[in-house]
């Protein structure tokens, strides 16, 4: 068997096992639990009142700011991982390159900070 595929076979098997377990639990609950349709029971919970309106309304814009910042920094972390493995062999040059890279990102973070993007309002 291919070595690479064999290495990752446990992921597939664990995934399938997890799904089987979840489906078993749900089927078990379907068999054991009472099941009756009723209109009142299916209303969404909102402090006992009837729900006011649908939820597909506006969402605060601050979530998007955090999402954008997250993408930048997460991609940065993914970039640093291969660097972290090979930098001891490459030496001082790699270190200063990473300092420069982190510094550019830090400038971006400071800019967002000063602009107030990190303030939760």
């Amino acid at each position, binding site marked *: 068997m291919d070595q690479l595929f064999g290495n990752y*076979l446990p992921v597939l*098997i664990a995934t399938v*096992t997890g799904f089987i377990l979840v489906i078993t639990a749900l089927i078990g609950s379907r068999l054991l639990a009472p099941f009756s349709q009723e209109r009142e029971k*299916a209303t969404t919970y909102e402090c006992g009142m009837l729900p006011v309106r649908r*939820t597909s309304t506006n969402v605060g814009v601050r979530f998007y700011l*955090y999402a954008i910042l997250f993408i930048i920094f997460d991609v940065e972390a993914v970039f640093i991982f291969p660097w972290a493995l090979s*930098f001891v062999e490459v030496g001082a040059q790699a270190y200063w390159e990473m*300092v420069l890279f982190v510094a550019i990102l830090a400038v971006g973070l400071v800019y967002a900070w000063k602009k107030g993007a990190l303030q939760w309002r």
Partner: protein
Amino acid sequence: MSSTLRQGRRRPATRVPPGLMIVGAVFALGFLAANAAIGYVVIDGRLDGQWYDIRDLGFAVQELKAQLDAINDDQPGFLDDIVGQHWMSYAVGALLGAIGILSFIGGALLVLIWVERRLIGRMQIRRGPNRVGPYGLLQPVADAVKLIQKEVLTPDGADRILFLLPPAIIFVPMMTAWGPVPWAPNMAYLDINVGVLYLIAVSSLTTLAVFLAGWSSNNHYALLGSMRTVAMMISYEIPLSIALLSVVLITGSMQLSEIVQWQADHNLWLIALLPIAMVTYFFSSTAELNRTPNDIAEAESEIVAGFHTEYSGMKFGLFYAVELGNALLVATLVATFFLGGWSLFGLEEWIPGYLILFAKLSAAYFVLVWLRGTLPRFRLDQLMRFAWQYLIPLSLFNLLIVAIEASLLARWDAPGLVTLGLFTVVNWGAAYILFRDWARRIGYQPDAGGPRRAELTQQVGGIEAAHRMGTAT
């Protein structure tokens, strides 16, 4: 009043019957003899690499796989051409690992739910579950039986398919993330060389399921809770990744078994060398877990139950199980990365590695429960500010320091005691200065005279008063 009550608590001296003493002595002698036998066999070295070596179940699995390969070679089947050679040993090994992990999670959850509830009860001066079974030990089983008998509702206007998916989607990352954890030197069933990256990738899948659950419920509370969770989880994922980066830098590997092996070789747990990374990782993980210091995602007093408001019955039970399973996973990862995994300064020759790891993960889990019992919930803006203005700059700075240390470690021709000792001192000093001064800079002001004791509660309430009344167990 109190003196009579106190006397009432004192038990009369009981005499141990002689028959029981003889049985106890026999048991003690047998235990000592068994230990001596184990010590003889271990020093003799006749267990090393044998399949019946229970210190490392990996050997037994390897033996089984070799035998399956031999059978496969003797009788080649039609599947060999389609799937590939030796497919049977790979499949059986993976299946054994998955079943072993699953049974461990199941068993540990049943025990640790009880432990957590008892501990929290103890911390809040109440008893916790003590009715079902001896000492309330069967309470988690009773909860599971109750949950499976409850009706599963689907709310009006919910997206039916997307509403069904999240319990399954959230369960699978929890299962797969256990793979790379090494339980003993050869006992990891998914020992890949990108283990750390794999862990980060798999554990961030939870965010998707949480958002799906909140969005498809058609409930304001659920939507709010899931938006909060996503914002918090993605914010804390960055310091978490960078904290793990410094571990990778020092050990020079992303393979979890190599990381533990490094700690075993150097006889040094990484908590001593990387205190900042440890604290960052631990705190960020509690944010990813939605546990109490950071549980704004399901803050009961604000948004009912957050993203799983509309889930009932077994679907809620799955969310609950995953939450606890992830807490267990984080405790295990802290034990693996920072507390030395299966290594215990040479004692792993005697004690099975998985027992050592279990002891360490129990300690880390206790700290998680302790945090839950001690700290109040943070506000959302406090949490976001803490992540972006404190943890991320701190962990980036720590990364650059650790990078210098890693290159020094590789180049400097000094004994390990000197370099690692020096780095430990430097890192603890840096941790002290950074934690203290940076926290003050972003606005933390400790009370001038130190914390005051709450005098009144010492008299009328509290554990001491309970002892005085004789009501504490």
